[in-house]
């Protein structure tokens, strides 16, 4: 089999189990057409080519190819249902097929008339007034399969609608021709076209006619449904289908861990406990003595440093025990472990307690200014009611998805075939191909080598047993590929234990946040200073000046990569992405503002966990708002609304499509903190691409206050001992969430969380039930880390092991949860991550209100008793 780019239509149809004669709709992305994209494909006749999105089988049944990874958001169901809705497909005749990794072939670019229509800032009002939702996107449907940043629906809602409407229109026209009537006289409903005089026919009989239709972009656009016509989308007439639910409750869903390839062996790997360590010696004999163990092999030769800081997805150094089954591999690994000696390397002194002091020291000093409005120092000096200062700390956190990392790889005929649960199919494909072809990391910095690597690997994306950012990093796929290359022709499965998952995560950054404010006569802040130090994922994902042996041109290339991939920034400072998640877009209306980013070195693999930098930024700023409200003697909800101030779009003047273009063209300066200091209270939007709208923040706060009965309860709890309410609100991934927590604290300092209320503004809630489910789950996730979450490191190695010492929330600890959605017809925005960040600060504020301590660090169980 040649490269994946060369898979022909016939190959694909065979693989998809459909005969020839089927009708295939897809984006035909040869270079010349790529710039024009989907619509032009439809105009030029339904392409029958090698990247199908929809396949109509000869019996009229529909196969929808879903290219975003499914890890619990319900996204593959939701996107397919959007298409089916516009297409008027009968859902009972729809099957889904998960796309293999394909190096960006799902790219869809709207034609010029669409992209120019919506310049930023986005014209909300115009959209809201339009009865027929216009086509738009806030996050470009760039073809990436990388399922992160809560952007699948944001990017692909319009795309899926267009596909559906285009097919429906073609069917209607084909039927009209067949009957000799006008298309206007026909309508489609559930896989049938209905015409005048009681005529009707199934889509299956229209396939050949539809194939000849060439509807224009304008016609397809006009064929889109109105809101009232939507069957599933939004508040549709029927519940949104949930394709995978039935298989899931019967144990039939195939997760990565369930892949079984004939002749497969299972490997367990004993890894170097410290990042960038190397293997010195090992003795395979005790492991080989275990029945079922086939062989023992190191991941890298002795002396070669493994993954960690600056090495992105390179696996840790380790020794693999390859066996007939998982139990034998586990037993063999236990026997092997005492025989290994490691060179622990430069990070063996990394220690959480010392690191915390380092970060807090860093935020005690001025950092790089990232946003400035007038002069905070003057305001602090003249503060009428004094100043307040607080330091907040968040430790490393591990995602701990229920399915530990796992991957199967098979190397034969010079190619790598992989089956894996991954959020990052393209990254997985590159890593697998890199191993297949033996390319160095340096070579992989070159796009032509990356393309060769992609072409040498096939990655089948399975269902994910949770992701939360962990499965964005294909290090475990690299391990499987390395072991497969060592034993060509034999499929090798690498199974991680829970201990492996806890000890070898890509942890969320540890962070110190230093806040200072001066209060004016009205008890509102006259100045606000925030200093943020975070262990940026830069340090892990991209080599930097501290990486040995890099030349100047290499360093320059990596600096460019940082800019292109992460919105600029320079190690050991934070990336543009991290700064844009709750620091630069700080929404409070304060007359003097200075936001700074402070140094933080990286000594362990750092990645991200659900909501990423919003975790520590939202915790700090919302906790501080709560502290200020108490100092002002005000109701925390009213005070929060006053802090946010009048309704406005942050950065409405500076945010133009031009600045986005400059960013995309890598024209921003490279040195220092890269992105120029933002002056005059305006916000850097180059990463988010969408201006924060404080009216939405206000809307979620008001709605959650209403639904939680804030006003009455706040008054009532004032006279009660040990009972309190807390509130917090945060924007992330273009959505807005407010959370109210109702707690009591008894004389033994034991915490009871009675109720959590959450409200989200995510534009149009396309799949309302899954939005509510994400809100519920995101609140539980937030409570988990707020109360219990902590990864500590001693001597460079992670201390925690399993759910006994890295506990997560259980059912008996879960309060009643009440969630709601702000009604909106605006374009859909993120849902997977936004529910999480506001939970921890709302809880911290509630604990204070209940007479407990002001908790400025995670996990809270250090200060209160969590039963």
């Amino acid at each position, binding site marked *: 089999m040649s490269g994946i780019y060369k898979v022909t239509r016939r190959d694909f149809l065979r693989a998809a189990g459909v005969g020839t004669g089927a009708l295939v709709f897809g984006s035909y992305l040869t270079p010349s057409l790529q710039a024009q994209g989907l619509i032009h494909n439809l105009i030029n006749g339904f392409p029958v080519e090698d990247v199908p999105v929809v396949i109509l089988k000869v019996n009229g049944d529909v196969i929808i190819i879903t290219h975003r990874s499914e890890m619990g958001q319900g996204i593959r169901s939701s996107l397919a249902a959007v298409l089916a809705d516009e297409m008027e497909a009968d859902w009972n005749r729809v099957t889904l097929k998960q796309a293999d990794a394909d190096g960006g072939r799902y790219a869809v670019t709207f034609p010029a008339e669409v992209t120019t229509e919506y310049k930023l800032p986005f014209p909300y009002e115009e959209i809201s007034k339009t009865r027929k939702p216009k086509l738009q996107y806030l996050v470009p449907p760039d073809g990436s399969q990388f399922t992160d940043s809560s952007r699948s629906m944001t990017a692909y809602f319009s795309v899926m609608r267009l596909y559906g409407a285009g097919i429906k229109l073609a069917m209607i026209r084909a039927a009209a021709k067949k009957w000799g009537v006008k298309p206007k006289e026909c309508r489609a409903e559930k896989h049938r076209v209905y015409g005048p005089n009681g005529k009707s026919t199934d889509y299956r009989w229209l396939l050949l006619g539809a194939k000849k239709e060439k509807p224009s972009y304008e016609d397809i656009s006009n064929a889109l449904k109105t809101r009232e016509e939507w069957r599933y989308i939004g508040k549709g007439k029927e519940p949104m289908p949930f394709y995978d639910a039935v298989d899931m409750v019967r144990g039939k869903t195939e997760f990565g861990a369930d892949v079984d390839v004939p002749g497969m062996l299972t490997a367990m790997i004993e890894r170097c406990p410290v990042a960038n360590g190397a293997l010195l010696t090992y003795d395979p004999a005790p492991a080989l003595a275990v029945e079922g163990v086939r062989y023992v092999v190191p991941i890298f030769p002795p002396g070669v440093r493994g993954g960690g800081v600056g090495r992105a997805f390179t696996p840790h150094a380790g020794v693999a025990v390859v066996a007939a089954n*998982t139990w034998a591999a586990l037993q063999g690994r236990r026997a092997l472990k005492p025989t290994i000696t490691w060179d622990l390397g430069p990070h063996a002194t990394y220690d959480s307690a010392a690191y915390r002091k380092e970060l807090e020291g860093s935020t005690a000093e001025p950092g790089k200014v990232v946003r400035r409005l007038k002069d905070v120092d003057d305001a602090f000096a003249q503060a009428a009611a004094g100043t307040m200062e607080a330091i907040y700390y968040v430790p490393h956190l591990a995602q701990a998805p229920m399915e530990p990392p796992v991957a199967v790889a098979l190397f034969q005929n010079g190619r790598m075939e992989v089956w894996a649960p991954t959020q990052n199919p393209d990254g997985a494909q590159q890593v697998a191909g890199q191993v297949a072809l033996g390319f160095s990391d340096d070579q992989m910095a070159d796009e032509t080598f990356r393309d060769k690597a992609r072409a040498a690997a096939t990655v089948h994306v399975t269902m994910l047993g949770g992701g939360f950012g962990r499965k964005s990093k294909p290090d475990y796929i690299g391990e499987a590929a390395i072991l497969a290359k060592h034993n060509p022709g034999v499929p090798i499965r690498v199974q991680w234990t829970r201990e492996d998952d806890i000890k070898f995560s890509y942890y969320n950054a540890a962070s110190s946040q230093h806040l200072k404010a001066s209060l004016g006569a009205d008890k509102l802040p006259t100045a606000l200073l925030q200093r943020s130090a975070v262990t940026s994922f830069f340090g892990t994902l991209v080599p930097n000046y501290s990486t040995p042996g890099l030349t100047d041109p290499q360093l320059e290339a990596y600096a460019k990569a940082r800019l292109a991939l992460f919105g600029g920034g320079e190690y050991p400072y934070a990336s543009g992405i991290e700064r844009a998640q709750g620091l630069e877009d700080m929404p409070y209306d304060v007359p003097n503002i200075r936001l700074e980013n402070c140094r933080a070195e990286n000594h362990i693999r750092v990645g991200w966990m659900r909501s990423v930098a919003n975790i520590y930024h939202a915790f700090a700023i919302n906790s501080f708002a709560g502290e200020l409200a108490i100092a002002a003697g005000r109701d925390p909800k009213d005070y929060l609304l006053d802090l946010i101030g009048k309704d406005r779009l942050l950065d409405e003047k500076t945010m133009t499509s031009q600045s986005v273009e400059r960013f995309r063209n890598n024209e921003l300066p490279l040195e220092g903190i890269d992105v120029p200091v933002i002056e005059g209270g305006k916000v850097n939007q180059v990463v988010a691409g969408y201006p924060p709208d404080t009216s939405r923040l206000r809307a979620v706060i008001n709605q959650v206050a209403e639904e939680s009965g804030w006003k009455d309860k706040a008054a009532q709890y004032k006279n009660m001992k040990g009972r309190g309410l807390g509130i917090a609100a945060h924007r992330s991934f273009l959505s807005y969430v407010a959370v109210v927590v109702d707690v009591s604290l008894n004389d033994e300092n034991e915490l009871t969380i009675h109720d959590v209320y959450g409200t989200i503004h995510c534009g149009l809630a396309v799949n309302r039930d899954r939005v509510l489910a994400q809100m519920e789950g995101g609140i539980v996730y937030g409570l988990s880390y707020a109360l219990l979450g902590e990864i500590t490191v001693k001597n460079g190695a992670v201390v925690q092991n399993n759910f006994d010492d890295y506990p997560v929330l259980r059912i008996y600890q*879960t309060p009643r949860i009440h969630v709601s959605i702000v009604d909106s017809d605006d374009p859909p925005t993120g849902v997977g991550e936004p529910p999480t960040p506001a939970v921890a600060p709302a809880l911290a504020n509630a604990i204070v209100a209940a007479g407990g301590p002001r908790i400025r660090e995670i996990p809270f169980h250090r200060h209160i008793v969590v039963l």
Partner: protein
Amino acid sequence: MSIFQLRVNGTYHNVEIDGNMPLLWALRDVLGLKGTKFGCGVAQCGACTVHLDGRAVRSCAVDVGVACLSEITTIEGLSRDGSHPCQKAWVELGVPQCGFCQPGQIMTAAALLAAHKETNTPITDDDIDNAMRGNICRCGTYPRIRAAIKEAEKLS
């Protein structure tokens, strides 16, 4: 290595394996029953829950040599067609998110349901807390699990 006779979902299987192998790996790697999941390996998360003679147990912590003495039921054998009240309630209320822990959740809930049916006592929130506390769901579907158990009670 010894030969064990395992009675799983009403079918007898003769398997030649290490008697210390946890039932979990015998089910998954030897019998190919993949609905029972590996989540922690130390009886902390409940993803591997199966029934031994109707009792919910963590199959990662039960050796094959012990399991062979009992009738074993896995998620694949809970119902022929997904018609167990828990499975129906789980779908109706849209409980699963990623779905990985749900077979274990359902097996634990099904044992709770059966126990209460036998004694003809209603299931309280405390009963749910006690029975389900060993099953972790990282997606946080707990509120819907609670509601679905109550719904399943009505259905059964």
